[in-house]
C-alpha cells in the first residue's frame, strides 16, 4: 500500500516538473513549483520523514513562493519566445548525465531494505543511545542539536549570511513614512477579518512547534518559518507600513544577530564550565539535564534567527516593490 501511494505521488511530481519545462507563463510556473514542494512534502510523510516534511512544506510551499512572487512583481511575467533551433546540445548533455546516474544506481541497495549499509554504522548507535544519553523522544532533534550541533551552528550562520546578503543587495530605503503602499487589502472585509483571526493562531502554533520540537516533529527552523509567515500574512493584508510599525527593521537586525550569538555562547559556556566547545553535558548537574538545557537554548537561538531572517528578506522585497509602484505613479 505504501508503494501505491509512492507511485501516485511521484507521478504527480513528474507531471509538475515536465509542465514547468513547457510553460512560458512565469506566474503559472511559480504556482506549479509551489505544488511541487507540497506534493514532495506529502511524499516525505509517506517515507516516515516527518520533520523534513514540516520544513519542506513551510519553506518550499510558503517562503519560496512568496519571494518568487515578489520577484515577479518587479520583473516581467512572461518568458520571451526566442526563435530557437532545437536544443540538441542541452538534451544530449542531459541524456548522457542521466544515463550515467542510472548506471550508478544499479549498485545501490533496494528501496527500504533493512540490511542496507546506511543503517549499519552510526545510525543504530544514535537510535539506541539517544534515549539514555540525551533523553528526549525526537531522535532527529537530538542529532540535529546535540550530536551534530556544530553543523547546525554553521547552518544558522548560513541563514544569517543570506539575510545580510539580501539586505545589502536590496537595501532598505530611508524616508519610511513616504513609502506607504496604501492599505493594500485593507478595504476587503473578508481578508481583514480572516487575517486578524489567523495571525494569533499562527503565532501560537509557532511557539507550540518550537517548544514541542523535542517531543514530536518540530524544532527551531519550522517554528521560525511559521512565525515569519504570520507576520508576512499581516503585512500582506494590512500594508507594509503598518507591519513595520509592529516590528521595525532595527529590531529585526538585532534579532538576526542575537540568535546566532546565543548558539555560539552556549558552546562557549560549555568551554567555560570545563568541557569542550558545544559540550552540553557540563551545563547541568547531571548529563541528561545539561543536554536538555543545551538543546532548549540552541533551538531557541535557531528559531529567533530564522524568523528574523525570513521576515527581513520579505520586508526587503516588499520595500522594493513599494518603491517601484511609487515611481510608476
Amino acid at each position: 500500500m505504501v508503494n501505491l501511494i509512492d507511485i501516485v505521488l511521484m507521478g504527480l511530481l513528474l507531471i509538475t516538473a515536465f509542465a514547468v519545462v513547457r510553460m512560458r507563463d512565469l506566474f503559472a510556473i511559480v504556482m506549479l513549483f509551489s505544488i511541487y514542494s507540497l506534493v514532495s512534502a506529502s511524499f516525505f510523510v509517506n517515507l516516515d520523514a516527518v520533520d523534513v516534511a514540516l520544513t519542506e512544506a513551510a519553506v518550499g510551499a510558503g517562503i519560496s513562493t512568496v519571494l518568487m512572487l515578489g520577484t515577479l512583481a518587479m520583473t516581467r511575467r512572461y518568458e520571451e519566445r526566442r526563435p530557437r533551433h532545437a536544443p540538441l546540445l542541452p538534451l544530449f548533455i542531459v541524456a548522457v548525465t542521466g544515463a550515467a546516474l542510472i548506471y550508478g544506481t544499479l549498485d545501490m541497495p533496494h528501496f527500504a531494505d533493512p540490511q542496507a549499509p546506511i543503517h549499519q554504522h552510526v545510525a543504530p548507535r544514535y537510535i539506541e543511545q539517544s534515549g539514555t544519553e540525551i533523553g528526549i523522544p525526537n531522535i532527529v532533534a537530538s542529532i540535529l542539536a546535540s550530536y551534530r550541533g556544530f553543523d547546525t551552528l554553521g547552518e544558522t550562520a548560513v541563514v544569517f549570511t543570506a539575510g545580510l546578503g539580501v539586505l545589502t543587495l536590496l537595501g532598505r530605503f530611508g524616508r519610511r513614512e513616504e513609502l506607504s503602499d496604501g492599505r493594500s487589502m485593507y478595504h476587503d472585509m473578508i481578508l481583514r477579518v480572516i487575517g486578524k483571526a489567523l495571525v494569533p493562531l499562527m503565532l501560537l502554533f509557532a511557539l507550540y512547534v518550537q517548544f514541542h520540537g523535542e517531543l514530536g516533529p518540530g524544532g527551531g527552523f519550522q517554528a521560525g518559518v511559521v512565525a515569519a509567515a504570520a507576520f508576512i500574512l499581516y503585512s500582506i493584508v494590512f500594508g507594509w507600513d503598518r507591519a513595520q510599525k509592529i516590528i521595525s527593521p532595527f529590531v529585526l537586525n538585532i534579532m538576526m544577530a542575537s540568535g546566532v550569538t546565543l548558539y555560539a555562547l552556549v558552546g562557549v559556556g560549555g568551554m567555560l564550565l570545563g568541557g569542550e566547545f558545544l559540550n552540553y553535558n557540563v551545563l547541568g548537574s547531571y548529563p541528561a539535564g545539561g543536554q536538555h538545557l543545551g538543546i532548549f537554548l540552541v533551538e531557541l537561538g535557531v528559531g529567533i534567527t530564522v524568523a528574523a531572517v525570513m521576515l527581513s528578506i520579505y520586508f526587503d522585497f516588499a520595500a522594493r516593490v513599494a518603491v517601484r509602484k511609487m515611481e510608476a505613479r
Partner: protein
Amino acid sequence: MISVILDILSWICLMGGSFLGISGAVGLFRFPDFFTRIHASGVTDTMCTVLIIGGLMLQAESWQMLAKLLMILLLLTYTSPTSAHSLAKSAIRGGLRPTLGSGD
C-alpha cells in the same frame, strides 16, 4: 457492532469526498469561464474536505486525534474559501468580467 457501523459510515464519507474531489478537478478543466472554475474548486474546498475529514474522524482512535482533526477541518474551512474569494476579487479588479449567457 458499533465498529461495523462506524466503518460503513466512514466508507460512505470517504467515497463521497473522493467523488466530489474528482468532480471538482474535472470541472476545473471543463468549465468555460474563470469564475465558474472557481466555483468548481470551491466544491473541493468545502464539501470534499468536510466529508473526507469527517470520515477520518469516525476512525479516530483517541480524543486527541479527534480534536486535532477537528482543528484541521476548522482551519481548512476558514482559509480555502477565503483564498477563492480573494482570487475572484483580484480578477474583477484586474478587469476580468464573467461571460454571461445569452438571454432566454
